[in-house]
């Protein structure tokens, strides 16, 4: 039996999705299907709360000017808001200093920055880099490019049938003395929450630095880089209720200080002559040109919103939804679910396939029911390879979801099966 509709009336976790929905203008929008919008694609990109949209509109309207170089009120204003946003990101992930926060476009750029700057300076012919088979392409292809370019080797940690990293395999790959382990905190394709603290410890003991791809973790659970003891961490603003076009790289100060710049131009220099240039301090050294000023400010507003809910409560809420959705999907014949079985190691992301129905068709039928899910390889083709499937359908939860949405999900599954059974 699927989830009891009566459950929808409960407060899932620490707050009610039904109530939070009113914080997001998108749920007022009429849909083509005429049905209520059931948004289950936060893992691709999250809707924006009104407070983020309003903060940005206000900043663009009344506090906008270029930052850092303007000697007038408006520019001082903009600079103050922009730098305050940097402080919010630092506090949100437990970074010791806001100077360790580099604003980038997205997690992809954060990882590329490390691959280009730290990578080209530190990974040489014969060296090794380790990533895993459950990564997003953003945490694979930059390392393929780097290792191919310098003549190093890229190793992939294998995954188990239920979507966990094979820790024995990790130990073996670390045994070869790699320079870096690049690993996701949470898999976007399987929902797996990796045991990061343990992994970082193993990697450090093996002498490897650890880059954490937190694109799927930062939006959904508390993160503390100091406690984690990792070396780099990448995140995307748009997945954590913030604007598009903004993300952050955190790096240990001494690593960032030692790294050469990535992109070059204005703001990242102290001096340019026709003979050469001298670099500004971090984080400015890595922020060439005019940054995504208002987008950083908007990310700050998203962080305020999340912090106000409390990241423990956000995690609790999604665990609650997962604990209902996972068995409800499992009870439906013809549904194959991926990733770990237990809520401790499975985030609010459920990948599944329906026997005999292509995931794309599933998503299209769902759309006609007002249910927005993703279908495809989720930019994680090595995961698809591992389970020998072309694609999955993926439902992912966030703060505005509630048990009604889980009901809508299971109903959509049944409707799709009925249509295709035809």
């Amino acid at each position, binding site marked *: 039996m699927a989830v009891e509709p009566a459950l929808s009336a409960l407060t899932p976790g620490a707050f009610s999705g039904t109530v939070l929905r009113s914080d997001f203008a998108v749920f007022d929008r009429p849909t083509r299907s005429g049905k209520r919008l059931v948004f289950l694609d936060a893992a691709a990109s999250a809707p924006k709360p009104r407070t983020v949209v309003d903060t940005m509109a206000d900043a663009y309207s009344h506090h906008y000017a270029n930052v850092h170089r303007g000697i007038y009120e408006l520019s001082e204003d903009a600079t103050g808001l922009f730098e305050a946003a940097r402080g919010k990101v630092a506090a949100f992930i437990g970074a010791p200093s806001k100077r360790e926060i580099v604003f980038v476009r997205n997690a992809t750029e954060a990882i590329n920055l490390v691959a280009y700057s730290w990578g080209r300076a530190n990974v040489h012919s014969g060296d090794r880099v380790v990533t895993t088979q459950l990564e997003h392409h953003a945490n694979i292809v930059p390392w393929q490019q780097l290792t191919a370019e310098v003549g190093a080797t890229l190793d992939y940690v294998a995954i188990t049938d239920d979507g966990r990293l094979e820790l024995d395999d990790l130990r073996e790959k670390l045994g070869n003395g790699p320079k870096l382990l690049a690993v996701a905190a949470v898999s976007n394709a399987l929902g797996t929450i990796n045991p990061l603290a343990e992994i970082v410890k193993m990697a450090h003991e093996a002498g490897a630095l650890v880059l954490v791809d937190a694109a799927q973790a930062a939006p959904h659970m508390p993160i503390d880089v100091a406690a984690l003891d990792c070396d780099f961490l990448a995140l995307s603003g748009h997945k954590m209720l913030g604007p598009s076009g903004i993300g952050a790289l955190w790096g240990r100060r001494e690593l960032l200080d030692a790294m050469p710049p990535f992109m070059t131009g204005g703001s990242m220099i102290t001096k340019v002559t026709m003979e050469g240039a001298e670099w500004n301090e971090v984080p400015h050294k890595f922020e060439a040109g005019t940054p995504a000023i208002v987008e950083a400010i908007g990310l700050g507003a998203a962080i305020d919103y999340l912090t106000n809910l409390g990241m423990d409560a956000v995690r609790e809420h999604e665990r609650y939804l997962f604990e209902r959705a996972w068995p409800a999907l499992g009870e439906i014949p013809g549904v194959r679910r991926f990733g770990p079985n237990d809520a401790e190691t499975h985030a609010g992301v459920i990948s599944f396939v329906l026997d005999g129905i*292509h995931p794309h068709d599933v998503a299209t039928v769902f759309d006609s029911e007002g249910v927005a899910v993703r279908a495809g390889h989720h930019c994680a083709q090595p995961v698809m390879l591992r389970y020998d499937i*072309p694609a999955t359908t993926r439902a992912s939860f966030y703060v505005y979801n509630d048990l009604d949405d889980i009901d809508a999900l299971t109903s959509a599954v049944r409707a799709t099966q009925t249509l295709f059974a035809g």
Partner: protein
Amino acid sequence: MDNLYRDFILEHYRNPHNKGSLDPHDLHFADSNPTCGDEMSMSLVLDSSRAAIADVAFDGQGCAISQASASILTDGLRGQSLDEVRDMDPKDLLDELGVPIGPARLKCALLAYKVLQGAVRGGEVAWPAEAEAAG
């Protein structure tokens, strides 16, 4: 919805025409849909004039839209000259499918067309403009 998955489409999906591979064949090409990673191949056997299609088969997994589209497209190919195939307008295939296809599914609907063009032009071709908006 009911519109998109009409019986006609689902019937072609369940029982696709011309599915499989032809060996030997004269032309062969495989391509994929980057949105979903689905791959499709097509084999063509030419007639004695070497300028027209005698037989055709497609292979590969895919969604109902791409499978039905390949089934319908290949049904009409036998006897067509290679020049006619090269001049084919992708809009005609969309018309033949006869169902409203949103931008996100256009590549599914046009994958067979793209693979066919790759086969008769001897190399990968760009996505038709119709499919561009979906990236």
